[in-house]
């Protein structure tokens, strides 16, 4: 049976924790609003981009001149996994669910005898994956100092990936991130970005398109751009998901702390009352004995 002082201390500590989790929830809620509107503002661009690319690609027959970003290198021996996670923890299962998806994917590829290379964006994913894939991780991109994710950050990662691709370091690239559905629903997603996956003929019209400059040239500039946009969008979705996950995790923590405080206070009051009753009985029986 803990003493009254122990109970008092315990209640005070849980109360302090509750204050912290509550504050974190508020901060996450404020950040979420900004991240969510940024993610939603970026969606139209990415959607139009894929429509335009779809229109363009549906009119092209895959040949030797087709850019390799669209047609692939012709083999799928080396896979690159780009794993986007958060820089900070305390956001529920957010980081671990992305890492788990990437790990399962990597294990499956390795079982098939393929070579796997990993680029981690965000420190938490690196921490989780490092244990099993220390040899496979080739790079860690740290966005810790970044307050608001801008297009240039997506560009920076895309440049790195494109550089590796041009050097023939990998054949297939897959992007792992968490798609933001709502505050309580974030879906870990794997998306293949090289070779580009085209939603074929979303609005395949019979109209003859004019291209200026010619098709091939537009395609060669459009494809790297598309890669950047996809990565940028993944980063934004991830940022929104992270805040959403943190918000609900901290909401749960606050509620649990509240329950614990209630229970502890009850025990505290019971034992205090028991002590008073005991003392009274002692006094009364002492008085009677006289």
């Amino acid at each position, binding site marked *: 049976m803990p003493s009254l002082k122990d109970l008092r201390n315990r209640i005070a500590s849980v109360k302090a924790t509750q204050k912290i989790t509550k504050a974190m929830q508020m901060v996450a809620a404020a950040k979420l609003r900004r991240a969510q509107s*940024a993610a939603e*503002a*970026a969606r*139209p*661009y990415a959607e*139009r*981009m894929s429509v*335009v690319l779809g*229109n*363009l690609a549906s009119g092209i027959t895959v040949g030797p001149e087709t850019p390799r970003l669209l047609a692939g290198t012709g083999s799928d021996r080396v896979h690159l996994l780009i794993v986007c996670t958060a820089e900070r923890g305390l956001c529920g299962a957010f980081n671990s669910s992305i890492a788990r998806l990437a790990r399962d994917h990597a294990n499956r590829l390795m079982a098939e005898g393929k070579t796997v290379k990993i680029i981690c964006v965000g420190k938490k994913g690196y921490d989780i994956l490092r244990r099993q894939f220390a040899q496979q991780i080739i790079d860690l991109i740290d966005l810790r100092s970044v307050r608001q994710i*801008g*297009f240039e950050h*997506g560009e920076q990662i895309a440049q790195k990936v494109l550089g590796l691709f041009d050097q023939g370091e990998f054949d297939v690239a897959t992007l792992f991130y968490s798609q933001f559905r709502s505050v309580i629903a974030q879906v870990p997603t794997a998306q293949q970005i090289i070779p580009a996956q085209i939603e074929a003929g979303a*609005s395949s*019209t019979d*109209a*003859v*398109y*004019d*291209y*200026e*400059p010619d098709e091939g*040239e*537009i395609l060669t*500039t*459009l494809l790297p*751009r598309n890669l950047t*946009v996809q990565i*940028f969008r993944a980063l934004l979705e991830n940022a929104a998901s992270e805040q959403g996950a943190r918000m609900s995790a901290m909401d749960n923590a606050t509620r649990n702390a509240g329950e614990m405080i209630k229970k502890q206070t009850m025990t505290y009051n019971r034992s205090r009352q028991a002590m008073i009753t005991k003392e009274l009985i002692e006094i009364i029986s002492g008085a009677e004995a006289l």
Partner: protein
Amino acid sequence: MATFTFELVSPERVLFSGAVDAVVLPATEGDMTVLAGHAPMMTSLKTGFLVVTDTPGNGKRILIRGGFADVSQTGLTVLAERALPAEELTQEILDQEILQAEMQYDATNDLTMKHTAEAAVAQLREAKAALNY
């Protein structure tokens, strides 16, 4: 005058969406005007001003840095890499853009890249002069 739907999107946000009379695009092979009923076409864009006319005699200028324009039956969609409405432009922003373009010029050895960067610098200088800074 017949109108058509025009959408201008940059990676960060949608800058314009609605019915317009005419749009002048800074296409890589020369400026061009898109009117309602234009034949489907796609072109890449260079640095320069895009002029939107939503009511006759009322043009709005937006500075574009690279991107694509897609004219289809449904209308015109411009995917701009960077887009800044003329009213949001200040001298500092322009100077910074010029500096960036110059850095791009210095950073590459590729001849075509150098050409585009050089053209971008020239265009930005021109824009600066046009805005009387």
